[in-house]
């Protein structure tokens, strides 16, 4: 082992990290579909952040609606109006906030549970680890929507509850991934070396296993956001969303309940759905690109 005289270990680590970040970014830049996804993603995040600038929030209130009922697109209402006379464009812009917020917070919950369960069941051995693995498998098998419906109807309808419901039902995929990574990291020589040097479990886990598993967690996070946003849309469509907030899913619920598809009010159905598809596609493309870059097994050997 060589030791550096001029640099402290922290500096070495920092340099190594920034170098690997740069390398990752270079590979990501070369991935065309990933970059398309990233551009789309940035655009949607900007719209969500700039919502107050782009559209007046008064346009969300039913009592202050200025348009007619289900007006087709016009100069004043570029995407028409809904059944309450509100501008669809305004609803879309403000809806992006709810969809992204729920998607991201559900993902945080799912990641924390998934990483914890995966690390624990992979790192430890014996009965309790086996039990954790069984619980993970159980959650993997149980159909998501029926469980989410039962949970959501018990917890009640609010933004946070929706995020919790999605979070606690979508972590097992992550846990299995982290577990398999942990199992392989655990067998590597440097971890044996750390053990010989007297490293405790906590040190091994936080200093060696977790940093090695993190890149995969990151790639997986992006894919989970996509699924979480889809789930939010579906739960809102079924009427389980926060009744006081406008999201893309609740817009589609409205559109369905007033029969927009049979009356030909396409502007009420198409735009929210297209937004969902684009955001979910963006997260999926970025996630796949990250996975390809961070997981050497998937990297193209051409």
């Amino acid at each position, binding site marked *: 082992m060589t030791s550096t005289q001029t640099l402290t270990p922290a500096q070495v680590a920092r340099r190594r990290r920034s170098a690997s970040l740069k390398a990752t970014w270079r590979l990501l830049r070369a991935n065309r579909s990933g970059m398309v996804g990233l551009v789309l993603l940035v655009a949607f995040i900007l719209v969500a952040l700039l919502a107050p600038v782009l559209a007046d929030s008064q346009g969300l209130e039913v009592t202050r609606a200025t348009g007619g009922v289900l007006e087709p697109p016009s100069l004043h209402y570029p995407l028409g109006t809904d059944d309450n006379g509100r501008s669809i464009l305004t609803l879309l812009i403000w809806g992006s906030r709810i969809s992204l917020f729920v998607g991201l917070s559900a993902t945080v919950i799912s990641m924390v549970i998934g990483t914890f369960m995966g690390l624990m069941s992979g790192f430890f051995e014996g009965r309790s680890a086996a039990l954790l693995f069984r619980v993970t498998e159980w959650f993997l098998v149980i159909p998501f929507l029926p469980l989410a419906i039962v949970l959501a*109807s018990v917890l009640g309808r609010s933004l946070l509850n929706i995020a919790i419901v999605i979070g606690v039902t979508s972590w097992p995929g992550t846990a299995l991934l982290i577990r398999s990574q942990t199992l392989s990291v655990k067998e590597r020589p440097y971890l044996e070396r750390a053990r010989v040097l007297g490293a405790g479990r906590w040190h091994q886990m936080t200093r060696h296993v977790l940093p090695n598993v993190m890149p995969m967690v990151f790639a997986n996070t992006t894919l989970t956001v996509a699924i979480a946003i889809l789930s939010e849309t579906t739960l809102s469509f*079924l009427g389980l969303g926060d009744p006081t907030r406008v999201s893309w899913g609740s817009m589609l619920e409205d559109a369905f309940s007033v029969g927009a598809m049979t009356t030909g009010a396409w502007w009420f159905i198409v735009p929210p759905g297209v937004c*969902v598809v684009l955001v979910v596609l963006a997260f999926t493309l970025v996630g796949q690109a990250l996975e390809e870059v961070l997981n050497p097994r998937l990297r193209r050997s051409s």
Partner: protein
Amino acid sequence: MTTTLVTAPTTSPVGRHRSYGRYLAGKILGAVASLFFVLVVNFFLFRVLPGDPARTLGRGRFSSAAQLAEFRHTYGLDESLPRQFVTFLHNTFTGQLGISLRYRVPVGDLIWERLWPTVMLVGTSTILATLIGVYIGMLGAWNRGGPFDRVSTGVTLTLYSMPEWWLGLLLIAGLAVGIGPLPGLFPTGGLHSTDVDPSSLKGVLDTAWHLTLPVITLTLAYLADYSLVMRSSLLDELGEDYLLTARAKGLRDIAVRRHHAVRNALLPTTTITAINIGFVVSGAITIETVFSIPGLGLLSSEALSIPDYWVLQGAFLVASGAVIVANLGANLLYGLLDPRVRT
């Protein structure tokens, strides 16, 4: 011809074989444990949460304390928890599953009545999605990077990113209602026309006609999974040594792919089919709502608005049970097909 060599050494499965019987027993035990866990979750979800379950269940429908006590007594909520659990187990195993708050009939009967439309819908679309998806994935992997591969990957990824019920809404607007001068080709919803006897030949055709759009929707929504998995697992196989051996023996490229690579690449698809049944069951809830098909899915989404808890619980139990059994089947099949997993 691609001649990529695999560099990663594969672990030898020799010495890790166990009898199929033992594998079988382990899997069945696991499935039973999963089912029991579903029951426990079903029971406790409504009882361990803060607040009075009777109030939650009644949602402010009771004006007097006497009414509340009456309700509590009817649903056995005034008994002790272990007692309630025994009653709950008894009700579950006799197939009664409680009384629906809305229909005032045993939930078990309700579910039994509504089961068949869902089974038809989910069954047909699963079969179609698997066949079409696997085929698309296969073609894509064979011509990796070619025009077909690029188009099919783009289309399947877009379908994957789409809420399946939104696709259903679009199909209703386009093919059932009709756009502009184009007439609608399919009914907008329901399972039968009112004037046709469902048991006659005409009735069967009528049902098929009603199910066409929902089946197309679910098939399109789920074939993406199969084609993406098939594509990547076939790409994995294409780099394996045994294919090089087969080619070295002088077998033609097409024979190597059909008889060697595809057979092995199909293995992961078995697992995906089982896991996906869970998603298709979820999809059935929204698709049945959109197309108003009187199946289990519509029953659950209608129960949501009441909310009719016992129906929701029963539907959850049936859906989970179906998925657990499907998974067990896939695991057993996988164990037969691939001896390596019997560890």
